């Protein structure tokens, strides 16, 4: 059984859909090859959430802790990976990460782990024609477009996924891009607000001259220079854009090029199980025991029981 009691493809797909609809990052783990004896068969799958909870079945305590740890690393770096778990020695293969399966069952598992991240957010400030073109083209590009504009309505921006009153209300993360296209109205406030977020791309649609004046005004008003250095102006790539749509195209191309990165989860802290010597991720529901002022972490209940029977002996390697 899964530690969280969910098994079967239906539960897997339902959970994937639920996380995706809430824009929560998660990773999928799928057994793609097995050499018996193993408890998981090819096609077995599980979902790992960003807090390290595992739903599904991809092998028992021999495999699960490693899968959780690698899934969290995948969420942190955004890259899929293929891992191989075997109890015997493995000859390295390109593109495969090898791990020891320490529970002596003797089999081998290959598991494909893929991070599933929500579409990058594009926050558009303003209702000028360039802002409208950014919303339309950004949506066509598959971005999660949020219009941050006081008084704006969903009817006005049919292609936007959401309409909010301010940049902060959009909750942009590191992978988000913010484009300020207000044509001079309250753009100082919008730039200041955008620079206060974690967004990986903040740009102002304005001529070099006007943007320069605005930057100096903000610097004079106490916004630090290193914060202002994050502001891109004029926004976009130099493609000789003339129409509003072409300006939007040049900005979206720059966002794709810079591809703001950000971890969907923190790379996990790890500890070594003192019994089986497996590396386990320190997550909220990780098995643990305190002994003489130190916390030890375990891959599974079996190792924990062995430890608790005689901690001193276990640590001395006599368990």
């Amino acid at each position: 059984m899964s530690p969280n009691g969910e098994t079967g493809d239906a539960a897997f797909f339902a959970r994937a859909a639920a996380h995706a609809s809430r824009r929560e990052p998660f990773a999928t783990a799928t057994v793609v090859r097995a050499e018996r004896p193993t408890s998981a068969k090819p096609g077995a799958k599980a979902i790992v959430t960003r807090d390290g909870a595992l739903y599904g079945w991809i092998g028992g305590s021999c495999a699960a802790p490693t899968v959780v740890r690698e899934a969290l690393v995948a969420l942190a770096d955004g890259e899929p990976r293929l891992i191989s778990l075997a109890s015997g020695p493995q000859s390295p293969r390109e593109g495969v990460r090898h791990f020891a399966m320490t529970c002596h069952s003797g089999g081998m598992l290959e598991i494909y782990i893929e991070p599933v991240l929500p579409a990058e957010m594009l926050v558009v400030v303003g209702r000028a024609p360039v802002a409208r073109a950014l919303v339309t083209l950004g949506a066509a590009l598959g971005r999660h477009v949020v219009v941050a504009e006081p008084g704006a309505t969903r009817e006005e921006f049919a292609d936007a996924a959401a309409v909010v009153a301010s940049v902060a209300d959009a909750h942009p993360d590191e992978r988000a891009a913010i484009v300020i296209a207000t044509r001079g109205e309250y753009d100082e406030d919008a730039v200041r607000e955008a620079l206060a977020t974690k967004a990986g791309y903040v740009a102002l649609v304005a001529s070099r001259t006007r943007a320069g004046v605005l930057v100096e005004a903000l610097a004079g008003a106490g916004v630090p220079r290193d914060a202002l250095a994050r502001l891109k102006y004029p926004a976009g790539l130099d493609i000789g854009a003339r129409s509003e749509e072409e300006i939007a195209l040049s900005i979206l191309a720059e966002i794709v090029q810079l591809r703001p990165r950000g971890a969907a989860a923190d790379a996990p802290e790890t500890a070594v199980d003192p019994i089986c010597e497996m590396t386990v991720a320190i997550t909220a529901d990780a098995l643990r025991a305190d002994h003489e002022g130190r916390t030890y972490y375990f891959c599974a209940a079996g190792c924990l029981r062995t430890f608790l029977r005689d901690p001193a002996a276990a640590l001395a390697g006599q368990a």
Partner: protein
Amino acid sequence: MREVAAELASWLAAGERVAIATVVGIRGSAPRPLGATLIATEAGRIAGSVSNGCVEAAVFEEAVAALRDGRARVIRYGISDELAFTVGLSCGGEIDVLVEPAGALQAAGLERVLADKAVVMARAVAPADRAGTIALLDEDGVRQGPSADVPALAGEAWSALRGGMPYASAVRVSDVDASVFFEVLGRAPSVLILGATHVGVALARLARDLGFRVTVADPRTSLATRERFPSADAILHGWPEAAIASARLGTEAAVVLLSHDPKFDRPGLVAALRSDAGYIGAIGSRRTNEERMGWLRAEGFSDDELRRVHAPIGLDIGARTAEETALAILGEIVAERRGRPGTSLSARAPAALARP
């Protein structure tokens, strides 16, 4: 004038008298580009815009005056910081607007636009008593208008048409040194997508949003469907040569080969290189491209000719998805047409401000 062509045609057909206002000069930054047009009738119908609302009311008054006295006029508008602030425009600009009653020459220009033919309108801006449209020249070399036979004017108009960019120039017309604005009304930019692939689907959608006329061609009828390409202007079930032959490609046209299959690629590239298309791009890796170039050289194409082929296709923005690839391709098409490098604009910000 292209942006108001439909309204202008219907108003003229209804027998209304229409004034045309055109942005013929810009100093500083202006809300609308050179050639931006507003049309108005005495009854108060208005279409188009010369300043996104900043000076439209004043332009409308001039339009009515021009319709009453039948004379063209050029008015300079300063878009003050204060005014720009209240209407939300970029500040500090100044625009010159030519306002004139639409006559036979304007109707002739409109006719070309509606037939999707490139045409240049020569509009005299100074001296004031000579202001107004004085000639047109179309892509077939047909000239019309009172000054159409002035050789210098025809020469300038021709180079404006070839360059595809509006510009102003001093020309001696009827023993007077005139300042003339050459407004280029090109054919609508178009993209011919060869290969109804998944990148093609994304490209068709984005290109349409950008105002391109979109044609998709693929002999595989199961791929080139209306369902997959709902916004395409035309879907052709045919081979690349036939599609290119029927498309009448001019410099405003882009041909994009997306098939990944030499069976389609090779005849497509040969036909594209023999057309006047302003942009030719072909998808594929560097290695595919080397093979492709070797093959085209063997077909007798020179290195100069092969430089027209953009491959690997698109701006180098690290595109991953089909949509991002489509964006990279469209960015390259626009950059190529405008002769720009496609590098980041902010990279050229003044050092003092860029410093952390």
